């Protein structure tokens, strides 16, 4: 019997490489005991609750150990920076066209942002050395994309923002999985 997959992935994404092994093992052991005593739904609820309530503490430990700093730096340089630079570029392009400055951007510009995020996050994912790191990169790239959109000059439509934030981790994990399968 396995704990809920999403909670397991979240745990591996936020916990440091050193801690993830023991924390996941401890939670798995107690999850099995709870499932035997109170049933699987109660065990799953407890597992998800523990992961959600421990996430900030585990992330803090990862930052203190310096491990998360590398992931954040990679995500900022590879995902957030290109997005912000693209935003500046599109703003410049619009400012050069009479009567276009300040108008909503055409779908083509948003599509370019999306492709850029996918490519950059994929490059990040391809450099991850383990599943644990790949999950960390995916989480960090989604956060970096969200920050870049929030920081950007133009108001991003909600659908586009959702697509960009989802595309970053998906493409990062997809390339990592493809590389592993090869």
């Amino acid at each position, binding site marked *: 019997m396995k704990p809920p997959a999403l909670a397991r992935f979240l745990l591996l994404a936020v916990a440091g490489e050193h*801690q993830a092994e*023991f*924390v996941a093992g*401890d939670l798995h*052991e107690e999850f099995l005991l709870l499932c035997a005593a109170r049933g699987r739904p109660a065990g799953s609820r407890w597992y998800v609750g523990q992961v959600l309530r*421990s996430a900030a503490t585990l992330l803090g*430990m990862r930052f203190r150990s310096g491990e998360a700093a590398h992931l954040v730096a990679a995500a900022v340089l590879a995902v957030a920076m290109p997005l912000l630079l693209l935003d500046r570029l599109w703003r410049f392009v619009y400012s050069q066209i009479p009567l276009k400055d300040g108008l909503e951007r055409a779908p083509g510009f948003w599509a370019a942002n999306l492709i850029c995020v996918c490519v950059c996050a994929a490059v990040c994912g391809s450099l991850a050395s383990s599943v644990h790191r790949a999950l960390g990169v995916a989480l960090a790239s989604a956060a970096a994309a969200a920050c870049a959109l929030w920081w950007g000059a133009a108001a991003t439509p909600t659908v586009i923002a959702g697509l960009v934030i989802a595309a970053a981790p998906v493409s990062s994990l997809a390339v990592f999985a493809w590389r592993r399968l090869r």
Partner: protein
Amino acid sequence: MPKGEALGEFEYLVMLAVMRLGADAYGMRVRQEIAARTGRDVTIGAVYATLERLVEKGLLSASLSEPTAERGGRAKRSFVLTGVGMEAANRARRDLESMLDGLEFPLPGGPR
């Protein structure tokens, strides 16, 4: 004692749980021991953060065991008090007893 070396309340609880559990002191058991004895709903993250801090302070030492099936094929990290940790626990107990000495419980005005 230099500032920062004194034990916090939760650190003390974790150290006492490690002492009680002996060779069986690892994250899950420590969490369960504290929950069972104090009624606190402690998270595994808080327990590991504290255990890690105590190891860094030199009050606990950690060792790894082989991965087992009931842990999903993952290793276990067990903890044991060091000599410095034992001294710190004794000092914390003396301090607490000294502070409690002469006080009458329940305290006036508090819940009975």
